[in-house]
C-alpha cells in the first residue's frame, strides 16, 4: 500500500503538476504556431520573465496574500500576467512585426526569437542573479498530507498548496480558453486566421487585433505557468531551454495549432517523464516475499535515469514525427 501511495505521489501527482505546466506553455506555443506560423523559441524565457515579474511584485508587496489567505505571489499573479502580456506585445511590435512585411522565410522568425530569448535571459539573470529564490516571502508554503484510509499505508499522499492552485488554475484556464475560442467573435476570428490567414484578411478580419490577442494569451499563460512552477519549487533563472523542449514536444505531440491538443500533449509529455524515471522496482517490492529465491529483483528498474530526463520529450517528439506528424488531434504539419 505504501508503494501505491508512493506511486501516486511520484507519478500521478507529479505528472499532473508538470503536465499542467507543460500544457499551459504549450497552448501559448501552439497558438503562436497557428497564427504567426513559427516556433517561438523565446517562450521558455517568457515563462521565466513572468515568474521574475511575479517575484518582484511579491517582494514589493509581500503582505498582500494574508488578506486573502493565499500566497502573495498567487494573489499578484494576475498583475504579473498582464505585465507579461504587455511585454509580449511589445516584443512582437519591436522584433517580429518588422520582419513580417518582407515576406521572409519562417526560419528567420525562429532566429529572431532566439535573439529575443537571449536578450530576456541576459536581462533577467542580470537583475535576478544566478541563484534560486523563493517566491514565498512572507508566507509559508502549505503542505497537505492526506492520510490514506487503508491500514497498511503509513505513507501519506503529499500535495502542496501551490500544486492545488496550479490544478485549479489550469482547469479554469482551459475552460476559459474553450469558451473564448468557441463563443466569442475574436476567438472565432483567431480560429479563422489559424485556418486560412489570407481568407481572414479578405473577409475583413482585423489581423492585427488577432495577433495581439495571440500574444496576450501566450504571455499570460507563460507568466502563470512560470510563476506557479516557481511557487512550487523555487524561482530559477535558468529555466529556459530545459523547459522549451518539453513544451515544443507537447505542442507537436498534441497537434500543432490545436489548443486542446496542447493540453493533451502537455499531460502526455508530463506523464511520460514521470513514468519513465520512476523506479518500478519499488512496486515489485511487496511481491518480493512471494517470489522464488532465485529471482533477484534489481533495486532499480527505470526506463531512463533521472539525469537523462530531457531525453523523454525528445524521444516522444521523434516518435510522433515519424508515426503521426500531425499529432494526436491532427493539427497542421508545418
Amino acid at each position: 500500500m505504501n508503494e501505491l501511495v508512493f506511486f501516486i505521489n511520484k507519478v500521478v501527482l507529479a505528472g499532473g503538476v508538470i503536465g499542467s505546466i507543460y500544457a499551459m506553455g504549450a497552448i501559448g506555443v501552439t497558438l503562436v504556431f497557428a497564427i504567426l506560423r513559427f516556433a517561438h523559441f523565446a517562450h521558455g524565457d517568457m515563462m521565466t520573465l513572468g515568474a521574475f515579474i511575479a517575484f518582484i511584485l511579491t517582494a514589493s508587496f509581500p503582505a498582500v496574500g494574508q488578506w486573502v489567505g493565499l500566497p502573495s505571489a498567487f494573489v499578484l499573479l494576475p498583475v504579473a500576467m498582464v505585465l507579461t502580456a504587455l511585454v509580449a506585445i511589445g516584443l512582437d511590435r519591436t522584433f517580429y512585426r518588422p520582419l513580417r512585411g518582407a515576406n521572409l522565410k519562417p526560419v528567420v522568425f525562429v532566429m529572431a526569437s532566439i535573439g529575443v530569448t537571449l536578450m530576456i535571459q541576459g536581462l533577467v539573470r542580470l537583475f535576478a542573479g544566478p541563484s534560486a529564490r523563493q517566491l514565498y516571502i512572507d508566507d509559508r508554503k502549505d503542505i497537505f498530507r492526506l492520510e490514506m484510509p487503508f491500514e497498511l499505508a503509513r505513507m501519506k499522499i503529499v500535495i502542496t498548496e501551490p500544486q492545488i492552485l496550479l490544478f485549479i488554475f489550469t482547469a479554469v484556464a482551459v475552460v476559459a480558453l474553450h469558451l473564448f475560442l468557441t463563443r466569442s467573435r475574436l476567438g472565432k476570428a483567431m480560429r479563422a486566421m489559424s485556418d486560412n490567414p489570407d481568407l481572414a484578411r479578405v473577409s475583413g478580419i482585423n489581423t492585427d487585433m488577432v495577433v495581439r490577442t495571440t500574444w496576450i494569451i501566450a504571455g499570460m499563460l507563460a507568466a502563470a505557468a512560470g510563476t506557479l512552477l516557481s511557487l512550487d519549487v523555487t524561482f530559477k533563472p535558468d529555466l529556459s531551454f530545459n523547459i522549451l523542449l518539453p513544451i515544443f514536444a507537447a505542442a507537436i505531440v498534441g497537434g500543432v495549432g490545436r489548443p486542446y491538443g496542447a493540453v493533451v500533449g502537455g499531460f502526455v509529455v508530463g506523464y511520460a517523464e514521470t513514468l519513465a524515471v520512476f523506479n518500478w522496482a519499488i512496486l515489485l517490492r511487496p511481491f518480493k516475499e512471494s517470489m522464488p529465491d532465485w529471482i533477484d529483483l534489481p533495486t532499480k528498474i527505470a526506463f531512463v535515469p533521472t539525469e537523462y530526463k530531457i531525453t523523454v520529450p525528445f524521444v516522444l517528439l521523434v516518435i510522433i514525427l515519424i508515426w503521426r506528424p500531425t499529432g494526436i488531434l491532427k493539427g497542421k504539419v508545418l
Partner: protein
Amino acid sequence: MALLEAREMHAGYGGMNILNGVSIEIEADQIGVIVGPNGAGKSTSLKAIFGLLHVSEGSVTLDGEDITNAAPEALVRHGMAFVPQEYNVFPTLSVEENLEMGAFVRRDDFSGVMEQVYGFFPDLKDKRRQPAGELSGGQRQMVAVGRALMIEPKLILLDEPTAGLSPLYMNQIFERIIAINEAGVGVLMVEQNARQALKIAHKGFVLASGRNRYTDTGENLLADPEVAKSFLGG
C-alpha cells in the same frame, strides 16, 4: 457614374506586369463577366481591384471613391466582397461560423442577413453546425459566396466560382448569382466556362495578354463569330 470603374490598370507580381492597361466598368445592377485565355490576366484583374496586388498605374473607384491599392479590410467596409477561387472557406469552422466571420466588420445584429443567405442557399441550413471542410465542393462554394454576402455588399467579386464543379452545381451557382444580382448586388466574376457565364452577363470583358480585347453585352459577345472563334473555343 458607374459602381465600379477600373481604368488602365497596370499590375503584376514582383516587377513583372501581367496587366498592361485593363479597364473594367460595371453599374450597380449588373453582372459583369471577365473571360479570356489562360494567362490573360482575368484573376489578376480581380485581385488588383481588391487590393491584393499592387497597382502600379491606373485607378480603381467604387461609387466615385478612389480605392486604388486600398487594403482589403477597408474595401470590405466600403461594401465590396471577394470570393477567392481556392481555399475560400475556413475548414475547421462550422458553416454558421464561416458566415459569422464574413460579418466580422459588422457591429449590428446580422441575424436577418444570415437568414437571407440561408434563403439563397437552403442546402446549407441543415449543415449549419458542420465544419465547412467536410462539405462537398459545391456546398463549400455556397459557403464561400454566403460568407461574402454577409456584409450586404454593393459589389461581389467572384474568382471562377464554378471551377471544378459538376454541371449540376454549376447551374445552381449561376442561378444563385442571378438571384443575388436581382436582390441588388453588383457582380463581377471571372469564369473559365465562358459560354455559360456570358449567357447571364449584362456586360462581358474579353481579356488577352493583359489587355481588353472586346467589351460588350454578354449576348453580343456570344453572337460575334470572331469572339467565338478566338476566345470561346468555337
